[in-house]
């Protein structure tokens, strides 16, 4: 009994774990509800859209970590060089990427990917996922680079950096292992959680825009179906429009959860997931005092 109390109090205090559990429970409960009330083809579409969205977001987080680490190391290396030109050039290009709104960059990248898919560049449907992941991570990576550089600068001001240098430990080992891995991995992981949330948001938004505005140019055959493209479909849109009717007819609210389930499910999955990712990230930062 004591163990149970400890488990629940520990869970309540570890907000990130609590919110992960809430997220999983919420998704599962919704899944059970949908199994009962949503027709099978629509349910299958929602499942595919959900997994595609979160797979791409996961790929974005992985690529961002890889790319961010590489850029940080490159910046650190070029900064110490006598010739300042490579460092300034790199910073210059990063600042230019920073000045392009993420949605514009991702939208243009997706249009290019869709055109490449039309020409048959991607041999299988799964090769398009990494392409989309890389395209998005290019416009998100700056956030991670900023964090990593901030961490390196902070530790370089401390005594331990100079002490390690005096002991003959190589610069790359201090940066990669002692600063980034041993002392900053929690910060990096926390950033990756929020990057995952940003990726879900951007993915859904771009797919919604493409499906609404560029449907004759880019269609669902070219890009994998996601929650955004599902929401843009006419039946989902009508489901969302039905929410407005509760302002004039409040009793209609019960119908929303049975008759308009496809659109409501997709919208709920997006909003609920975004909120849970935000809460997980905050809880993680709080628990580890970041």
């Amino acid at each position, binding site marked *: 009994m004591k163990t149970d109390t400890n488990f629940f109090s520990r869970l309540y205090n570890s907000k990130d774990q609590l919110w992960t559990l809430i997220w999983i429970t919420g998704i599962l409960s919704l899944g059970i509800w949908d199994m009962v009330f949503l027709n099978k083809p629509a349910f299958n579409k929602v499942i595919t859209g959900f997994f595609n969205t979160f797979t791409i977001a996961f790929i974005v987080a992985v690529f961002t970590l890889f790319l961010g680490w590489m850029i940080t190391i490159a910046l650190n290396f070029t900064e110490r060089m006598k010739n300042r030109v490579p460092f300034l050039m790199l910073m210059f290009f990063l600042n230019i990427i920073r*000045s392009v709104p993420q949605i514009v960059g991702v939208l243009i990248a997706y249009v290019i990917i869709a055109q490449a898919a039309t020409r048959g560049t991607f041999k299988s449907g799964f090769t398009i996922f990494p392409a989309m992941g890389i395209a998005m991570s290019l416009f998100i990576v700056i956030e991670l680079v900023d964090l990593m550089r901030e961490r390196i600068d902070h530790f370089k001001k401390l005594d331990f950096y100079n002490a390690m240098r005096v002991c003959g430990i190589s610069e790359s080992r201090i940066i990669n292992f002692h600063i980034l891995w041993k002392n900053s991995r929690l910060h990096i992981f926390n950033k990756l959680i929020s990057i995952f949330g940003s990726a879900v948001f951007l993915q859904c938004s771009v797919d919604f825009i493409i499906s609404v505005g560029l449907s004759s140019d880019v269609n669902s055959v070219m890009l994998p179906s996601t929650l955004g493209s599902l929401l843009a479909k006419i039946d989902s849109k009508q489901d969302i429009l039905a*929410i*407005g009717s509760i302002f004039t007819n409040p009793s209609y609210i019960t119908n929303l959860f049975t008759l308009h389930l496809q659109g409501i499910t997709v919208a709920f999955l997006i909003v609920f997931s975004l909120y849970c990712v935000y809460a997980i990230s905050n809880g993680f930062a709080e628990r580890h005092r970041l």
Partner: protein
Amino acid sequence: MKNKLLEHLYGIVFVTSILIAVLLLFNSNRKNETSSRNVELNALLDMPISNINDAFQQALAEDAMNIFYPGKKQHNDSLFSELIQLKKARYTTKLQRAHVAQSLSFEKLVSLSGMYLNFIFAYIIVMLLTYYGVQTLALWRFIRHRNTIDQISSSHNSGRSVKSILAAIPVKLFKIIAYGVLFSPAYVLAYSIRTEFNTDSTFFMILLGVLSNGLLITYSNKFYTFLKIEYHRGYVESALVKNLACSWKTDVPSGIPLGALLHPRKRFKGHVLDHIYRNAHMQYIATIKEQASFLITGLIIIEMALNIHGHLTYEMLRQILYKNYDIVIVIILGIFYAVKATDIVTDYLMHRERLKYEN
């Protein structure tokens, strides 16, 4: 500051030159598309045939060609049939693109400028509202948090009555709805109320820009974190020793007046919060660049996803669809300038703040 400004200027010049080069390349490609690879055929493209589907006119033109280039009948025949095919293809393309093909003319630039000004207007208003909203919300949360801690430490009864739990239910419900709205992407929110309200106006765009896409909640949380970090710094204890007011209630003279909290220019004279706020505010200014980029992303999503006609980024989406890439490039350049202008203003504000504390 001078170096920062130079860096921004180089960036503007670099991106402008790249995009202008792409624009020129696109225009020259478009011209080449209309001409044929066959030089001989190009010379004949302007041959006047009023109705290319009329057999009589075709025969007349072919005869004229044979008179003009005698002794090459076979060559003339093949060249002529190629010419007719090319003319037909050009005519069909022209018909298909009649309502969608546009090029960058002076009139188009004027119309784009109007849309751009509208976009910038909405951007500035949303920026000011979120700047105010982020700080007010974060301060409100921080004051409530400190108040709760004070109450817990002064109260001996740690349990909660059934009455207080029941009273908290409406507040919790309101919170769930508020978080649902704040975290909704703009298109979910707009479509859910579209049957009752007109969501295509600039006013609604501003409202959605402030409330949706998680902008307000994300940055108010950031500001709240800055406030919490600042509260634990040593200078706060020094200020308390110097007898600065430290009550977190809003209804006592030594507390924080509600008017000061809601005022756009936040000053809490004689209260420890004034110093905490000032230090947190300086850190917040550094994040404005990031917030501005996020805000522009949000506004673009609103205009594009809701198909708001006559607005800049909806126009961009339309031009991408019609493959009028020269107009798309000009719009992207405009958005880039807006981001760069924000970067310059933010750097200037940071520089001014630093100067204040350095002296």
